[in-house]
């Protein structure tokens, strides 16, 4: 492989890594606080793109507002999912929550099929995102430049919220010890709602960046990034935001690199992600980087 090709793959991998990181954080945050794997997270990701799509297509909003609105609506969606599918089951056996999460995932997917239609739609791509820069033989999409910037900003905002605000303190307390936090007067439901809002908002950000990069949206589009981001969260140590970020990069790079370096195994790439998850869960359940 030429050096150029290597750089190309590297830049793709890093860009993808950021996207997975944004989604993976949502999985980690919810798991850290609720010990629940939010199966519906990938589908919330998918809904964000449709929110943006219809905001532009139906309501003719300028893309900046449409994207922002989509992120907000998705955050609200995340809160609603928790409110109606997970909150009633707080005190139920884990299996109930798991089934609820799976059911929610299917519900969102099929709702999208019924309401939006199963055929892929073309996502609107503003002018500024269609430019491609060529640097020493490597094609860099403008989206690939914007992605890290937005992602880093989002991560900084997240870090600020978690470590500098009372809500963030509450979130950390709950993930350490649910019962004590409850007894200390922390409003559990409100804090959990905020967690979902932030996680979903981040996923929505990732979703729009994703749709700008791969502008075909369809109801099942959340499955592929969802499972990869989930794998990233697991490998980084589920419950850990830092782990989710690092895991996101790992998965992003691996996704691109495996196809690039081992084209013969390209058909198996979906399996690799699960092999990775299984190995991590069996061998180092706290993740490759340990717990946060």
């Amino acid at each position: 492989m030429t050096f150029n090709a290597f750089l190309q793959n590297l830049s793709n991998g890093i860009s993808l890594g950021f996207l997975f990181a944004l989604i993976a954080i949502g999985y980690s945050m919810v798991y850290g606080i609720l010990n629940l794997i939010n199966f519906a997270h990938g589908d919330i990701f998918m809904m964000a793109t449709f929110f943006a799509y219809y905001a532009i297509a139906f309501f003719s909003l300028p893309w900046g507002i449409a994207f922002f609105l989509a992120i907000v609506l998705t955050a609200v969606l995340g809160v609603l999912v928790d409110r109606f599918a997970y909150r009633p089951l707080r005190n139920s056996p884990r299996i109930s929550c798991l089934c609820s999460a799976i059911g929610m995932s299917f519900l969102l997917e099929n709702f999208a099929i019924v309401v939006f239609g199963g055929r892929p739609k073309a996502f609107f791509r503003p002018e500024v995102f269609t430019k491609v820069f060529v640097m020493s033989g490597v094609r860099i999409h403008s989206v690939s430049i914007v992605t890290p910037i937005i992602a880093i900003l989002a991560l900084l905002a997240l870090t600020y919220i978690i470590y500098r605000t009372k809500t963030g303190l509450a979130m950390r307390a709950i993930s350490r010890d649910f019962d004590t936090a409850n007894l200390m007067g922390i409003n559990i439901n409100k804090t959990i709602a905020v967690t979902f809002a932030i996680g979903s908002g981040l996923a929505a950000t990732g979703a729009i960046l994703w749709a700008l990069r791969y502008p075909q949206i369809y109801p099942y589009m959340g499955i592929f990034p969802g499972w990869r981001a989930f794998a990233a969260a697991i490998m980084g140590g589920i419950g850990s935001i830092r782990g989710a970020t690092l895991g996101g990069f790992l998965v992003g790079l691996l996704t691109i690199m495996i196809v690039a370096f081992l084209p013969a195994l390209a058909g198996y790439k979906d399996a690799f992600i699960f092999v990775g998850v299984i190995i991590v869960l069996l061998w180092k359940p706290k993740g490759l980087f340990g717990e946060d």
Partner: protein
Amino acid sequence: MISKKMRNNNKLNCLVILLVIIFVTIAERSFDAYVIRILNLCAIYIILGVSLNLINGFTGQFSLGHAGFMAIGAYASALLYMSPQIKEVNYFITPLIMPFRVIETSFFVSLIFAGLVAALVGFLVGAPCLRLKGDYLAIVTFGFAEIIRVVFNNLQSVTNGPLGLKGLPIYTNLWWTWGIAILTVLVVKNIVNSSYGRALKSIRENESAAEAMGVNLFFHKSLAFTVGAFFAGLGGALLGSLVMTIDPNTFSFLLTFQLIVIVIVGGLGSITGTIIAASAIAVLMELLRAVEAPMNIFGLHVPGIPGMRMLIFAILLMTVVLFFKQGIMGNKEWSWEGLFKIIFPKQRDIKEGD
């Protein structure tokens, strides 16, 4: 005496089996093809649901990998019951490996093979999952099922890859499906009501206490996975020969999801509940198919709403999980004793010792 009760139960159960045989005979002769297809699906869903319930409901190991075992069963049996000619037609890109290329066996033999291979894989999947709990077990089993799907998608020389297998001969009929359904229910019921079944349930209730009482976790969890996978393999094989076409995506998570709905709606700890739910959902699936296809109502062309079926199922699952956690039957089973108590409520003082 417990043994006397069991013997009596067995006699009464034979009666039920006889009734089913009579029913199947009549059905084979006089029902139309559509109804027969639904009856076949009912039986297959019973096989799949009951086998899943053994793992998820009675042993408390929440496995999401059932579709994987079905896929293995479907392909394993197809590789044996397909004639060499059909094989050649299908495997036109890469020929099927030997000896399968030239072998053709009876449906019966292929079923046994399917069950055994699926059981073996069930054992291999269950073994590493021993120490995993709840969500993690679900993820790992899901992962195994996905890996199986991807591998099948790529092994052209064995499975014909994404092209799948077409033109499978229809061997599945009411005798096979209901016969195996009865077998599944009997085997699982006998396991569950035995000392081994109590051990499985104790694992579900409290693993550490179960171990402390001498229950070997490895043996019993493997038992659940292996037996569950065996019947899932049979179910998959029957399904394959019913729908005549299989490809790696036939046995997707969607199918596992339907089984989860069946098991939850019927009640995680109840075979009876699973039977009822499986039949109901098999029928519902077919009826709802109408909703997804375009219809002509009074001359108005109403376009079908694809995705509606699964949306309804998702809502059904959510409703049960949120409001009817126990499902239809919860932990309760049909029992001859229970029936007599309802019919003859006054005779409540009959002692165990007879």
